[in-house]
């Protein structure tokens, strides 16, 4: 037998051996969050429980598509996303299973979970405006809609249309202000941003800190994380649309759900319990600078207290229905 052929076979056979064996005994987490924000918490869980965790990171929406396609064969035990709307969508598609968790009423407020606990919020984030303190004066911006004013042309950074934060934010604006105002707002935003479209919140905060742009909408904790690293950065956080007539800021939750198909129900529940426990919640609060949803855990001291902020009155569970028409509006305006 010619050597080269033999070589091909040997290579193929030896190389393929380890790839076929999927670690059966580990807990598989599908995660739509940035790895850096969830890996430390999962590592802590793994260290405490001895349960091996494997994570697959992708866009939240893509993970839902994947779960649906995999159906009964999915290796996923747990779904973690950065947006409650996506979790609600997964619930509607019956990808997640309900759970009875003793003491949940005291641990996570009911507005941050599905009625049957198919998904449970883990950490809260508000959609705020990050601005450069040398470029934006007090009172220049008070509403998120101000970002669309022509005077900010070339000075506003925005997230890409694929970002679930943007989609959620636009959904809330649509629900409160209607499609016409929303479309006008997005048109202005698009003109102001031009090519300043960023894939990640991190990048928007960095751009504002460098003075490339004056302001942009982001999740609050990216600002606090940046300030923790660069305490002298000329940036500040502005919760918009406050006051009597204000729409309020968009409050969203990252959350978790256990898949219907899991073969590791006990371990999956253990992960959920760990993440809502004071220990897990403290990690979200102090490592990530998010708002812990467990009322027994306090947020990082540098954050504005959540109680002092007026939040838009659009229930998280409605976000799922709002998503598709919102996408159409975003695409019609031509955001990218």
């Amino acid at each position, binding site marked *: 037998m010619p050597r080269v052929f033999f070589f*091909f076979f040997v290579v*193929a056979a030896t*190389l393929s051996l380890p790839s076929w064996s999927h670690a059966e005994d580990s807990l*598989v987490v599908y995660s739509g969050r940035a790895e850096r924000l969830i890996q430390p918490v999962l590592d802590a869980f793994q260290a405490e429980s001895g349960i091996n965790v494997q994570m697959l990171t992708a866009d939240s929406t893509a993970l839902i598509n994947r779960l649906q*396609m995999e159906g009964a064969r*999915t*290796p996923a035990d747990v779904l973690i996303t950065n947006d409650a709307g996506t979790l609600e969508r997964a619930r509607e598609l019956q990808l997640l299973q309900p759970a009875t968790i003793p003491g949940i009423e005291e641990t996570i407020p009911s507005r941050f979970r599905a009625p049957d606990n198919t998904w449970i919020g883990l950490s809260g984030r508000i959609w705020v405006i990050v601005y450069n303190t040398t470029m934006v004066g007090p009172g220049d911006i008070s509403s998120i809609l101000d970002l669309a004013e022509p005077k900010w042309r070339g000075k506003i950074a925005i997230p890409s249309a*694929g970002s679930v934060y943007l989609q959620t934010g636009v959904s809330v604006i649509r629900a409160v202000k209607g499609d016409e105002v929303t479309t006008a707002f997005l048109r202005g935003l698009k003109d102001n941003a031009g*090519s300043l479209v960023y894939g990640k919140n*991190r990048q928007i905060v960095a751009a504002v800190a460098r003075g490339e742009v004056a302001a942009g909408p982001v999740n609050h904790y990216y600002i606090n994380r940046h300030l923790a690293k660069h305490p002298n950065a000329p940036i500040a956080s502005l919760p918009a649309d406050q006051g009597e007539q204000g729409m309020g800021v968009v409050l969203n939750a990252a959350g978790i759900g256990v898949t219907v198909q899991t073969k590791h129900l006990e371990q999956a529940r253990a992960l959920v319990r760990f993440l809502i426990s004071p220990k897990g919640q403290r990690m979200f609060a102090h490592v990530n600078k998010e708002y812990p949803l467990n009322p027994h855990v306090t947020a990082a001291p540098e954050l504005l207290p959540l109680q002092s902020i007026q939040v838009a009155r659009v229930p998280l569970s409605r976000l799922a229905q709002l998503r598709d028409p919102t996408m159409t509006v975003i695409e019609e305006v031509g955001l990218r």
Partner: protein
Amino acid sequence: MKKLDSAKTLLPLPLIRFRLPSPLILLGFCLAVALMLPLLYVVFSAMTADPAVWRRLWATRVPELFLNTVSLSLGVAVINLTLGVSLAWILTRYTFPGSKIWDWLLILPLSIPSYVLAYTYTYLLKRGGLLEQVWQTIAGPEAVFFSPFSFAGAVLVLALNTFPFVYLLTRSALKNFNVSFEEVASTTGANRVTTFFRISLPLIRPSLIAGLFLAILYVASDFGAVSLLRFQTFTYAVYQQMTGRFDNTAAACLSLILVACAFVFLFGERWFRQRSRFYQTTGRYRKPVPQPCRPLTTLLFTGYLLLVFGASFGLPVLLLIQWTVKAASAGEIAHQFIGYVWNSVSLSGMTATAAVICGIPLAYLACRRPTWAGTFCVQGAYAGYVLPGPVAALAVLVLVSQTVPQLYGTILVLLMAYLVHFLPAALQGMESTLQQLTPNLEEAARSLGARPLRTFFRVTLPLVQGGFLSAWILVFVQCMKELPASLLLRPVGFDTLAVRIWLEASEELYQLAAAPALLIVVITIPVVLLLMRKDRT
């Protein structure tokens, strides 16, 4: 003819003419169908899509995407043309210290995947970054350099990534150029510039166009660079629709448009090539003799070459080395790193082996049985050529979920997507190797009583193994670099090097992406050099 036929009917043999198709044809047919099915599925699901989806896409996305894709391709083409022709001209017409080495160095940019180049340029071009600082010392402190996340940024990165295509083809055309034509022009009074534009350039046009077509095809199907630079092209939009929407219909529609454009483009290329053929008419042929340069010219040329090489390879690789060292000394290289290497290597190895094995019957059909059935099979197998990565991934995804959903989420799906995507590359090499082998040898073996399989293993394979091995290596390297399909289809715990680079780079975590990026470049360099050396002898 008639007579022969009627003579044949007298013999008891004619039944043989209606025998079953040979096992080879059957095998080739099955393979071709398997390779074409994904494409057909995408076409089918796009055709049957809700008209509302089509209307939405036409109204919101298609015009912008079309304009972006075309203008990006044109922009890259213009820069490629300038760089490729000038570099090839310098290195074939002049000789100066180091000109032989430059000749080699200019191939190296091909070993950098587009997303790696893109991510180093997001660093170099960022506000206050290295290039802007340099620019500000020249043009004043207020000067701003263009953003990497713009048309200019995307054109720059992709042009620096693809100019070797044009350079290489122009170079070989200029090397075999007949200088007599230019001499005739000079004797009739044309100056050097006129001679270049009126005589030399038109004569190397076919090679130029071939190089440009390669580069444009690469640009239009690129996912890595445009996704990191967030420049909206069709290929990137397909990925975005797949990951941002709850159904894949819109992605399929955009894929259909993209594939249709690619077909038009490929046929356009064929047509162009057939129209522009030049032949040596007389026997008088003189090779160009490179002229030695004066010191000043040498300096000028070296500076130019250094600039192009530095921008396309030197600087990015230096950055990668620096980041890798930093990350290693900070202990930031993940402990799973070896695992990522293993995933990449094993998957690429498997795909390459599968591609060569599948390629054998198809290459055989192409070279030994040029019947219509054989041609059909071979052309079908080439269908993957027009599928950019995300489209190949989508196609395999849709097909698998409709037919054998059990496979979804396993490594086999990823393998299939790779195979559809890269088999054409292997097939091309194998076909040309097999073509060079005269059938007489096989016929001799057969006439001595060896059966077809034995003939293949004892006679054919030993003679073509070199060519098959280079096909294997080619596919292996392509798979190591593959990004979009891996991103979309990887099983749990199966991150490849390319996936890691992209995930880290898209968060601008430069140091963390450096080690896998450097590794891919290091693995690719010898392969690029190897393939080029074969090309030159």
